[in-house]
């Protein structure tokens, strides 16, 4: 890649972006770029973008910022440790729905249980793009693909309902069809003290001819301003509706303390681990206790 001139969350103009023209990922990239630039005290040095594998997972390469582009499905464990050892960093884990809900499904559940203070952005296009069009965890029942040749017979995974049920403290849905709402959600998600899920609808122009830009526009609606996202029961009911999909913060609570804040390593100091000096005298004491 070319010489870095200045720090900016902006990406290179002449960058060879590996997405298809018209891909929904561009929409997310653009709105994320804009959103991050508007967040106070956030700069490329104190920010880390963590991703897994897949088309969406390439997103860190289009930013000039710290990034950790790891393994398929494993963005969340890496992001968890980065935040847990470095309270001074803002961490976003971002990948597609195959990465986060399929390959990384177990980590998804347990990251929610930990309530680590990270934002988890999921590009949800209801199809596998990088491997050319097989069903993803959120592909709708009935869709035929090169593998599911007689149509998908599985019920789609409902990330919103699962997240609320497993104890997530911030659960939201955005869509590239509504950049304004999605931008607001991301800002709130980053501000939220704890794990924040932002599932974002985006069309795959090449492999998903059913869930198109128009389809997402027609099947989503913005949540009313009067909607009370602190009511868990209502949130679950809303999450379980599978004909029309609400956009906005669906559930939020700030009662649970985040994982990182409860760690005993931060009881006496907030200093990140890398700055600390191990005291060999204290180790000696501990060794001597083995007498």
């Amino acid at each position: 890649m070319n010489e870095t001139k200045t720090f900016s969350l902006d990406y290179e103009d002449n960058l060879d972006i590996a997405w298809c023209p018209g891909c929904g990922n561009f929409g997310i990239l653009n709105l994320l770029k804009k959103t991050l630039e508007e967040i106070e005290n956030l700069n490329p040095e104190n920010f880390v973008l963590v991703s897994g594998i897949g088309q969406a997972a390439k997103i860190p390469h289009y930013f000039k910022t710290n990034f950790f582009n790891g393994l398929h499905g494993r963005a969340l464990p890496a992001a968890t440790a980065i935040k847990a050892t470095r309270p001074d960093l803002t961490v976003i884990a971002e990948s597609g729905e195959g990465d986060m809900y399929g390959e990384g499904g177990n980590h998804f559940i347990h990251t929610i249980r930990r309530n680590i203070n990270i934002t988890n952005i999921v590009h949800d296009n209801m199809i596998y793009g990088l491997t050319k069009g097989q069903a993803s965890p959120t592909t709708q029942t009935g869709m035929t693909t090169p593998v599911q040749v007689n149509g998908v017979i599985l019920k789609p995974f409902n990330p919103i309902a699962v997240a609320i049920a497993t104890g997530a403290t911030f659960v939201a849905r955005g869509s590239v069809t509504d950049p304004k709402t999605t931008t607001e959600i991301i800002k709130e998600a980053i501000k939220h003290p704890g794990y924040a899920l932002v599932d974002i609808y985006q069309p795959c122009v090449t492999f998903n001819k059913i869930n198109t830009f128009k389809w997402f526009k027609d099947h989503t609606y913005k949540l009313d301003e009067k909607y009370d996202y602190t009511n868990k029961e209502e949130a679950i009911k809303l999450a379980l509706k599978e004909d029309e999909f609400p956009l906005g913060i669906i559930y939020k609570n700030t009662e649970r303390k985040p994982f990182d804040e409860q760690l005993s390593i931060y009881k006496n100091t907030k200093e990140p681990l890398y700055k600390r000096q191990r005291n060999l005298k204290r180790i000696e004491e501990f060794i001597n206790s083995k007498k």
Partner: protein
Amino acid sequence: MGKIFKDDVSIVLSGEAGQGIQTIEKILTKILKEEGFNVFATKEYMSRIRGGSNSTEIRVGSDTVRTHINKIDLLLPLTKKSVDHLENRIDTETIIIAEKETLNLDNKNLIDIPIFKIANEIGSKIYSNIVAVGFVLSLFGIEKEQLKKHMENYFAKKSKDIIQKNIQAIEKGYDEGKKLYSSEDLKIQIKNNEETKDNLLINGNDAVALGALAGGCDSIFSYPMTPGTGVLLSLANFSQKFDDILVEQAEDEIAAINMAIGGWYAGARSMVTTSGGGFSLMEEGVSLAGMLESPMVIHIAQRPGPATGLPTRTAQEDLNLALYSGHGEFPRIIYAPGNIEDAFFISQKAFNEADKYQVPVFLLTDQYFVDSYYNVKKFNLDNIKIEKYFIKTDKNYKRYKITENGISPRGIPNYGEGIVGVDSDEHDEYGHITEDLDIRIKMMDKRMGKLDLLKENAIMPEIIGSEDFKNLIISWGSNYNSVKEALKKSKIKNTSMLHFTQLYPLNNKVKDLLKKAEKIIVVENNATGQFANLLKLETNINIDNRILKYDGMPFSVEELIKKIEEII
């Protein structure tokens, strides 16, 4: 009977899981050590919480004792089944100390002691193990007044009533033994000394964990798996006392290793501890560490496989797994400590080496190693240094800068003005994805080039015995003390031992050493001779003589002597 032990005694306590065999082991070894005796203890147990047959072997010697032997001098069984379980280790010389009637035992060397009756009189069967402890201690001629002091120390946190009952139990057991001791029927006259009192009494688990702490390890991410869990527990115990280590139980091993790599990326010195089965799941993470050039420390306490195998027994079957783990090609370091001191210093070193070369570093131990303990001199920390290698970045920082020796300065986020990008795809100097095949070659050469550096700096194997040898017995890892004692006790001539603490990569000078030997015998706890094969591969020297054992138990000194003598 008139049996007196002067140099060495092997005491085995056996019973069901839940009968307190481990408690006896702990109390007895601690008291004996505090009285200045050299002790060694190892246990053998079944994969269950209650029942079955578990046993603990405690050796006490005038000289240091550091390994398992087959012979049982004194057997204290708490069930009949446990005697049957040890059948092939009981010979005509073995003295069995038990309550004859309750256990329904018949043996000519049986000394009938009312262990359970005494315990019941005190209040409960649960005191029977302490009665046994008292009995054993009396045979060493320890003063009765000392018992109270030791018990008060050991049970310091318990209620007065519990301490009192335990003291009663140990004293009653003591009185039974004292009768034999005084009549010279059964007596242990092993030398003790003041210096030993100040020794540490430490097992492999603690040695690895303490070494990690001394190596600056500040975070451990793991999923529990026997026998690797011990290191996680030791570090958790430390974290409670000192607050400066992050201990997280991951949802699975895959998460654990990815967390640890995330930790290193953020500047934290991280490790994982597991066993073969858990490590199988970590392999993709090892490959990631290879590509990211992330430092990594992986402790594998080996046990017999494949699959779940024998979960609580011992083996050296996972060398190949560590050696070849992860897809693609990248350098790594594999260490296998041979004794407690080694485990401490090698674990310490592992963190500096991982950081310096930005490669995964393996610590291979096994169940026998982590669960065995003995007295050692206090570790000397004078030369311990925590060498951190990450740098403060500047604006033009490139994480994967091509350098002459292949090591790119490692930056971490928010330390300096640079940005730090790492990628599991092949990448350019900034860490960005690339499919430029010229860059691919440069990056591969850069990563693989570190292997030469690692070879130059590899720890040389230790020669025990004359450097002017005809035959070489090669060992690695936990077989250190067994082979050492076997050679000391056997009458074989012109034979030295060559022990490897670093298994990979090998120092270039290893080949010259091996060439000097007329006959090479490799001793390993596996069925194929994994290290012998690796030696052959790396040095092109044929190794035809292999002493292999894979029944889940460690080598005993006696069987090693027999097998070595058969070959030489």
